[in-house]
């Protein structure tokens, strides 16, 4: 049987393993649900401070709770996109199980993609929970096409996964101190408009700092998703963020795969793949 046919079985193997490991910490699962509910409730009360806020410049922020919840839900996804691939290798290295996984007849890219599959499922659940609690308990209205929003979400996640591949390559060669994780982790929350409109950065921090947000793929992902879900825009009105994300993908995908192949070769030569 060829590798492609076996891919779903292998992905399932990793998902089943991670689900079992996850369920062996049941309390943590319930605490996380509770923590999402607490965050949503807190944001609801903070949003009441801005009741009646109608500046037309910030059309996506007329309902700040809706903007924050989409921001948080999507940020969760984006973080998983770029961190889970590197984490997959790091975690197996730290546990000491990477060697036994590498001894099975699968290639490294399959291991990395399959090991992060559970992270995406888990993130989907918790991201959905932000929107679900907002809708059910606090009456947040989401409009527009969910399908288009999902396309934005997937596209941004794939772009971030390319950065994740670079991050995984870095983790493989240098073991620690992943700069992509640090830059994107801190950068996305501050510069991508998760908690406040990116226009404010230009106003208060100057045009140079303000333009950092233009370099980050999550900015365009969030912009597109909010345009669709909050403002109810259709495909014709969201082409700018959509094409920008596609541009990122065209550049980053081949580059990250090239770097990854080099990192794997180097780690095998040095015999350092299983070291941490």
């Amino acid at each position, binding site marked *: 049987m060829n590798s492609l046919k076996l891919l779903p079985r292998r992905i399932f193997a990793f998902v089943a393993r991670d689900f079992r490991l996850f369920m*062996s910490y049941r309390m943590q699962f319930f605490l996380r649900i509770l923590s999402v509910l607490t965050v949503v409730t807190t944001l609801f009360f903070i949003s009441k401070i801005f009741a009646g806020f109608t500046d037309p410049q910030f059309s996506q922020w007329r309902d700040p709770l809706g903007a924050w919840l989409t921001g948080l839900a999507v940020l969760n996804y984006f973080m998983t996109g770029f961190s889970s691939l590197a984490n997959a290798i790091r975690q197996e290295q730290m546990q000491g*199980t990477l060697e036994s996984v590498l001894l099975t007849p*699968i290639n490294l890219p399959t291991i990395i993609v399959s090991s992060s599959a559970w992270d995406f499922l888990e993130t989907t659940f918790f991201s959905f929970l932000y929107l679900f609690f907002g809708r059910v308990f606090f009456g947040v209205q989401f409009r527009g096409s969910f399908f288009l929003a999902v396309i934005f979400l997937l596209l941004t996640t794939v772009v971030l996964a390319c950065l994740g591949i670079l991050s995984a390559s870095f983790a493989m060669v240098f073991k620690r101190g992943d700069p992509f994780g640090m830059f994107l982790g801190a950068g996305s929350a501050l510069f991508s408009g998760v908690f406040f409109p990116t226009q404010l950065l230009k106003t208060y921090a100057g045009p140079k700092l303000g333009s950092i947000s233009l370099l980050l793929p999550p900015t365009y992902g969030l912009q597109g998703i909010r345009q669709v879900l909050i403002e109810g825009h259709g495909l014709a009105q969201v082409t700018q963020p959509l094409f920008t994300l596609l541009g990122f993908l065209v550049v980053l995908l081949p580059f990250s795969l090239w770097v990854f192949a080099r990192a794997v070769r180097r780690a095998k030569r*040095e*015999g350092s793949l299983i070291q941490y």
Partner: protein
Amino acid sequence: MSAISIRNLSKTYPVPFRRVRAFFRRPAKEPVEALCDVSFEVGTGEIFGLIGRNGAGKTTLTKIIATLVQPTTGSVSVHEQDSVSHDEHVRRLIGLATAEERSFYWRLNSEQNLMFFARLHGLSDRSAKQRIKELFAQLELDEVARRRFGELSTGNKQRLAVARAMLASPPVLLLDEPTRSLDPLAAARMRELISSLARQDPPVTILLTSHNLAEVETLCARVAIISRGSIRAIDTPRNLRDLTSGKEMVHITIAGGEKISFARQHEDDLLDVKIRELQARGARIVDIETERPTLLDVLERYEQS
């Protein structure tokens, strides 16, 4: 046909970022030469022993065969598949069992652990369950099937590692100290299992790495002595002993407590002569002991040379 073929294999672990360090005039370690021009073949169904001191290169050699590390020069092929260019195929042909306890998921039970690895090997859930059941019975692990790996005794962890290596029924097994943590009875059963695997049809080829020289001597058809990255000798355990010294010490105890000791060449007629002499003088022989050179003597000799 040889199951494992190793040709002019060398491995030097490079020092990461050596040129960068040199550029900044930072001291850099020298590259480590772990293996130097190693060549040998292991026949199908053969139990082949690899002995040597810690750091001699056994682990590096095993890891290169298992495709975890790439050689610097030379090649390894398993059933004629190259370990670098056809690494995925080679991994289908081998199973590696090490004494490394951290190679399992501690919060999963024994069955769940094996199920995960069986799926990675491409086994369907049905055949995986069947195979796991067989292996648990064969390795006496039934009682701990539902127990978390972290709760197993060291011996059971080791047996589970062997079970994992055998999951996909590979034609080649690389066993690193398979009896190290087992009690004497379990160790004897493991040895029996290893020899039965080599006898079964189709036979399993086994590369056994061990510090238990008596075990290597009992199980292995041929043994390689590795020292400082080079193979110093390859032969049957008996020939290796004879290479060191063809002599063996004989101690004869006769009634009354008198002991006669002498050295003789292996299988010469000196023992018959001595026995006839003693019988001629009316002495009653109570005990005869022979002291032959062991693999330890052989190993020591190669280490000193």
